[in-house]
């Protein structure tokens, strides 16, 4: 059965079987992935998968009960069974006055957002093998201290999303994601350092040259050789683009309507309040052409749009789907995310911090003495309180210059304080995914080392 037919059948069986309302999504994904290490192909993967997800809502006293079922078996029998199981499961749940499909406002225009380039489908495996080889060679050729690698990965994924609901909305879009990544290892005096760099795009033509990816990755690994700890203390901290992006992703999670109504976000109840320095403006735009988070409609059929989330430091909007919007007495912002196997949730689309002025080097130079962070790891962020404490690496800065590489330290603070303490935002905005941030500087954080 085609995925369109499966969606239609699932909805018909659900509503025919006693559901008050329902929606269904079918996702078809075709993927190719290659890893080359040194000169050798390490693995090649190819796959094609279809998954059908169904949400049913059944009427109860004062609200609707909800259940979600999914299957990768799209036979008539399997679809019928998942529909009847969904209805039975929804009857076992409690009526929730806020549950339900959106009341209306479904997407009317489905603009072409340049999410896929037709001829890219014809590119074969060989192209990926070649790209990964070139990145790998460029990384290893840059410096004799690049002695090894975890390999270079290249791949493409094509997706088709077909969504329909019992309120009459039906929509479909296709998208692609191509990527190239390189992870070299630099070695000197018995110690090893690794780092990585990558490029990701909706089109093959949009990917960076493999040599550029390989060289950038190698430079990142090399510059970390000889890293050491620094003394514990309080210092200004500059985050480069990739680490600023990681901070912004933590902020985005705390803007989700679900975290807000559950009061499990430090931003709950802060709408309209100043939560950051006036240098901080954050936008979410689901219709950015060729954006890695773009889609014409969200996981409930609502049109995606542009939302100013933080405007000059003031919290302008949460990110909402229809359910979390109802819980908060607000409307959806078109941010319902949906996989086949889950109920709608909230996700950022293309979310970025507006660039300011000055290069990364200028932000560093103005700092005088402090820390430049180029990598963070660990899970030390508590969204309820905003408490932040993560492992970091980067460079120690004195006199505005990079003195030596640093590792095995932690940086700690509270995200709310950090946002308020942003005293510079750089000008380079690099898209390495659906979230992007320019380099930024936080006036003061606790650094733990020796």
């Amino acid at each position, binding site marked *: 059965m085609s995925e369109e037919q499966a969606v239609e059948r699932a909805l018909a069986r659900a509503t025919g079987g006693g559901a008050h309302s329902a929606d269904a999504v079918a996702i078809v994904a075709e993927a190719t992935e290659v890893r080359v290490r040194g000169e050798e192909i390490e693995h090649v993967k190819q796959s094609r998968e279809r998954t059908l997800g169904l949400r049913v809502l059944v009427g109860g006293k004062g609200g609707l009960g*909800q259940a979600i079922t999914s299957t990768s078996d799209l036979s008539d029998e399997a679809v019928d069974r998942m529909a009847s199981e969904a209805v039975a499961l929804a009857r076992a749940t409690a009526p929730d006055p806020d549950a339900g499909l959106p009341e209306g406002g479904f997407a009317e225009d489905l603009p072409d957002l340049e999410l896929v380039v037709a001829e890219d489908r014809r590119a074969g495996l060989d192209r990926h093998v070649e790209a990964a080889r070139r990145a790998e060679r460029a990384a290893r050729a840059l410096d004799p201290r690049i002695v090894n690698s975890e390999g270079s990965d290249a791949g493409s994924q094509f997706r088709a999303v077909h969504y329909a609901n019992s309120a009459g909305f039906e929509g479909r879009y296709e998208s692609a994601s191509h990527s190239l990544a390189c992870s070299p290892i630099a070695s000197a005096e018995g110690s090893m350092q690794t780092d990585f760099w990558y490029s990701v795009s909706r089109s093959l033509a949009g990917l960076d040259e493999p040599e550029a990816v390989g060289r950038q990755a190698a430079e990142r690994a090399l510059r970390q050789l000889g890293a050491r700890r620094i003394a514990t203390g309080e210092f200004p901290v500059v985050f480069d683009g990739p680490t600023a992006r990681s901070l912004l992703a933590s902020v985005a999670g705390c803007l989700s309507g679900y975290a807000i109504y559950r009061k*499990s976000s430090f931003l709950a109840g802060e709408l309209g309040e100043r939560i950051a320095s006036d240098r901080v403006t954050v936008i979410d735009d689901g219709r950015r052409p060729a954006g890695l988070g773009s889609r014409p409609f969200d996981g409930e059929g609502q049109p995606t749009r542009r939302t100013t989330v933080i405007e000059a430091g003031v919290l302008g909007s949460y990110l909402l789907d229809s359910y979390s919007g109802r819980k908060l007495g607000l409307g959806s912002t078109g941010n319902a995310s949906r996989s086949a196997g889950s109920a709608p949730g909230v996700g950022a689309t293309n979310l970025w911090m507006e660039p300011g002025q000055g290069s990364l080097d200028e932000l560093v130079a103005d700092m005088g003495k402090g820390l430049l962070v180029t990598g963070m790891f*660990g899970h030390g962020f508590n969204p309820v309180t905003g408490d932040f404490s993560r492992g970091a690496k980067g460079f120690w800065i004195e006199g505005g210059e990079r003195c030596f590489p640093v590792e095995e330290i932690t940086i700690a603070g509270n995200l709310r304080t950090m946002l308020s303490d942003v005293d510079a935002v750089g000008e380079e905005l690099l898209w390495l995914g659906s979230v992007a941030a320019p380099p930024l500087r936080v006036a003061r954080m606790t650094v733990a080392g020796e």
Partner: protein
Amino acid sequence: MTREPETTPGEPLGGPADLFRDRFGIDERALDATLGRALERRVDHADLFFEYTSQDSVVLEEGIVKSGDRHLVQGAGVRVQTGERQGYAHSDDITVESLELAAGTARAISETGDDARAVAVRGRGAPTHDLYPVVLAPTDVPVADKVALLYEIDAYARSRDPRVEQVIASVVSQHRNVMIAASDGTWVADVQPLVRLNIQVLAASQDGRRETGYQGAGGRTELHTYLTPDAWKPLADEAVRLALVNLDAGPCPAGTMDVVLGPGWPGVLLHEAIGHGLEGDFNRKKTSAFSDRIGERVAAPGVTVVDDGTLPGRRGSLNVDDEGTPTGRTVLIEDGILRGYMHDRQNARLMGHEPTGNGRRESYAHLPMPRMTNTFMLAGEEEPEDVIRSVERGLYAVTFGGGQVDITSGKFVFSASEAYLIEKGRITAPVKGASLIGNGPDVLTRVSRIGRDLELDQGVGTCGKDGQGVPVGVGLPTIRLDAVTVGGTGG
């Protein structure tokens, strides 16, 4: 690695291999034919992996079970290995035709050559272990029982303290059927149940501070293990206690100090700091901070660390790994000396070692890799109280959120979700936001005392590697580590 937070019973079936034969027509002949096609050119090894998994969960929040879900995942993968190369193709369509197509794709990466080989899988083997005999699949327990359990937990947790503002609880049940057939004649099938109960409590103080506490438990057992109040009440108590402790917690001081780790879940330190670096793939490629160090001292005398996939009913246990190799107990560090690595078949073959039963994959859509099962340190002799008493000024870390490691540099970090200051040998004020950071090959040399109280974790760990998550276990006795870097915001 992190910890987080009806239905129609399936028709009666025989063994898991019968399931794939009866439902999809995959019998001995189909296996032989597909493997034969995968081997048409010169390759070292080919295998087939079949999966049929059902999973369901129900979630309670704001005092009601708002939603339930149920999923069916099925598919098959064909893998061909030549030297260090692997070709893998998978599909959610389990038919002889799609398998043959996948076999052709997977084979296309192997060297050219034409020495076709015939393959005969041997009579399907029952796994040698029977670590999780489950009569009633957790996915077949009536959803009404699961819903009732969540309401009881909600009412109980709220009754414990007026500061409890929100309870989010869930029951997750999984029933995974796998079958593996390989060109060396391997043919084995296994049924792998997995259950998990999660309780998260949000508490608010009068001055508006909010904190969460989480406690969960699970394993490869009957769900009924967790339906009795004796089983779930301690978990709810613990979640409430943790949230309340953190309401009173102050900032953790930053700097270098002696650290005592409590028993059980803090074994995540071993998983991050040691375990990943001892996985065979990183050592074959010499990208691990532990590469070429077998026989060297990497821990203090008295420290013995094992990975054991054969513990009955544990979350990290398996009868066979996802390549059909029976799981085992691998000594990683013995009395402080590095003894061995954890292997899948490919890395064992390339390094001239024996597979250790650590070849695991998230699902049929993923390639197997060397992964941990249950990783823990054996108990020492000391009373846990004496270990704490030995510290003049330091940190007592009891529960952790999760951790991460850079395998190549060896640097790791993990975040405490319950920790206290130790002052003059006594546990004093709770602190929050503590992170421990260090270097894998170095941190266990700092172990100066080992308690006699080895505990395994409650069964909630999920390990992530290369984008694949698999359930794992960890364990630790109370230990003291000298001079560890602690991150926090306090002075």
